């Protein structure tokens, strides 16, 4: 079992967890994730590893409290033991490409952290474009700045950086400086789709990290399957990163809604049971 050593709120409905799980910390590479399970009655959910410290034997998870399990996790005190399995998935393919643009939206900024770090270490010029609905939801700004050569921020409401979406900033960047050598776009499926649509005509290699529903995370159930270039792939073992130009995002978005009714019900029941403690989070994520 793994122990939650530290828990802190980094933005409304966003928490950072430092989890002690030495074997995972030691093997983690950029792009990989873990499956977590809070307790016997829980569900298994995938969470990308945002950072790892092999020496301390810890990994960092950034979790947006969006459904029952993530909200419940937010209520666990430090010291709680949970099941953490990994590191899973194929690591990010890193090369010295030249200019690499990291486009992150919402919770998708967290998986970009180790990727930006690896890109910079490989000698790339890293430009990060981070966006969110409002300033406080553009998470991990300091951490990304430390791993990037240039930063561009966007907010939907204009409260920070330029007003608009990350794709607007990316479009302008391409227009001003020509196409980058590679783009990593991670965020909600709709954002990744927009990034892919934007870079496709330029022929810029673009990588998306997909967030399918999973159970085992080891290729056993096939729940996470997506269509990539007309072929069925399993996000858990073939991914989570794929050539964004080949991903059928419409299918991904549909499949993400498979259990929307049950998810709402579970959340409603949970909030009723924990009204006093969880409402502040719920207001933001609702």
């Amino acid at each position, binding site marked *: 079992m793994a122990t939650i050593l530290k828990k802190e709120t980094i933005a409304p409905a966003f928490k950072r967890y430092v989890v002690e799980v030495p*074997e*995972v910390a030691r093997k983690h590479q950029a792009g990989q994730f873990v499956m977590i399970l809070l307790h016997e*009655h829980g569900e298994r959910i995938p969470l990308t590893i945002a950072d790892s410290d092999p020496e301390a034997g810890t990994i960092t998870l950034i979790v947006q409290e969006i459904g029952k399990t993530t909200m419940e996790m937010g209520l666990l005190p430090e010291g709680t033991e949970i*099941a953490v399995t990994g590191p899973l998935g194929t690591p990010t393919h890193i090369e010295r490409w030249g200019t690499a643009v990291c486009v992150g939206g919402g919770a998708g900024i967290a998986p970009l952290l180790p990727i930006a770090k690896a890109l910079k270490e490989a000698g790339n010029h890293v430009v990060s474009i981070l966006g969110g609905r409002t300033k406080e939801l553009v998470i991990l700004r300091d951490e990304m700045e430390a791993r990037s050569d240039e930063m561009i921020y966007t907010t939907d409401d204009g409260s920070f950086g330029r007003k608009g979406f990350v794709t607007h900033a990316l479009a302008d960047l391409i227009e001003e400086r020509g196409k980058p050598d590679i783009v990593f776009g991670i965020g909600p499926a709709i954002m990744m789709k927009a990034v892919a649509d934007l870079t496709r005509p330029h022929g810029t290699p673009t990588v998306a990290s997909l967030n399918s529903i999973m*159970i085992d995370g080891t290729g056993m159930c*096939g729940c996470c399957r997506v269509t990539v270039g007309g072929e069925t792939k399993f996000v858990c073992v073939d991914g989570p990163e794929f050539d964004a130009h080949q991903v059928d995002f419409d299918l991904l978005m549909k499949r993400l809604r498979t259990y929307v009714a*049950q998810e709402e*019900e*579970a959340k409603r029941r949970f909030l009723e049971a924990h009204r006093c403690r969880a409402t502040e989070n719920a207001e933001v994520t609702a």
Partner: protein
Amino acid sequence: MTTGKLSPKERMQIPRQPMPCQDPHERVLNFAEVALGLTPELARREAERCLECKDPKCVAGCPVGIDIPRFLVEIREGRFDEAIRIVKETNTLPAICGRVCPQEDQCEQVCIVGKKKDPVAIGRLERFVADWERDHGTVELPVCEEPTGFKVAIVGSGPSGLACAAELARNGHSVTIFEALHKPGGVLVYGIPEFRLPKEIVRWEIENLEKMGVEIRCNFVVGKTATVEELMGEEWGFDAVFIGTGAGLPYFMGIPGENLIGVYSANEYLTRVNLMKGYRFPEFDTPVKVGKRIAVVGSGNVAMDCLRTALRLGAEEVICLYRRTRAESPARLEELEHAEEEGIDFRWLTSPVEILGDDEGRVRAVRVIKMELGEPDESGRRRPKPIEGSEYTIDIDEIVMAIGQGPNPLVLQTTPGLELNRWGNIVVDEVTMMTSIPGVFAGGDIVTGAATVILAMGAGKKAAAGIHDYLLGKGGLGGEPRREVAAPPAG
């Protein structure tokens, strides 16, 4: 009633005792076990049917070679404790095997009584004594040899791994099982439904293994958390590794519409329900879609499990689509009959060609084509051929693909030098079960392709013997083990 003095002729006159079962109408409303188990009276009566053949074919028919006539005599005489002791000489998981073994293809198939009458119900008797022992709290753990100091890693806690671990522990080796999921048991836990194999029984058998000193590490994915090579390296220090990762890669048909919402692999469907207890949502957090009209493709044991699970989840109509006929169906007869009793709509000689969805990408129908049987194929079964123009559409809201599983590649891809066959299964030496890598052994579905629990257990046992010999050779036959002798396991 048990004189032990009956003549063979008299024994032959005793009919096979029926297995008490939950009523079909009732049982489709719950997940409790269907077969309730023999009473002591029924068991003794059934055991009386054994002819105690001089050359018992049943023993040869058992993949782990249980001394069947000997334990049947003990049952007949009412010495159930002695009976279970005999079973456990060769079978470490009798409560499980007594439930899920295809006895009709093994011990019972070759039973001499079966030549004229119904064979002796060996499987049911095996289950009976295992349950009896559990209910009477007199469980005896096998005696383990003095610790040898050798460490063996077992990859996967399914039937082959559990059997292998038990044998190695008996031989005094220190055994650690690595399991990717959060609960041990492999297919016994995620695959086989509660109504056929209560999870409580699996848990209990595994606890006994732990009492023998076997360590189980869950949430550990060999190939990811550590590779086989690393396990055998300095840091982990295992002297041998057994790979028993099973058939954990779901196959799909490759027809249009297979990624629609409501299309499940059998693995996913069963895992949601069995391992994650989706049928108890929202008490348990993992949901499972509850359809009204459900189709299951395939007619093996896994398909039967899916069909009957769908009924219990509350489906109004459950349809089995199989491209051959009932006669070719790979499912156990008992499973088929149970499914028929429960009201499954079997559509033989019917194969899906396309799954149709609505605007939201949810399954709404399946288009099927009728088949006819042609010439025998390489499996010896007549090859199904589509009948042109026979297509029709069945309205459904959920479909489960139970057409087989392949080898999960996670361990295989991360173990350089491991020889695989053309289906991606591990190649092993037939006697020792050693792979192309010295010290690395394998057995079960990862070697044979999807088969049965008992065959996997037999392979695990065989590999344990191979590993034992390998380790003794490694330490110098009869010589000193190379490691300090650890303290004997607790319990």
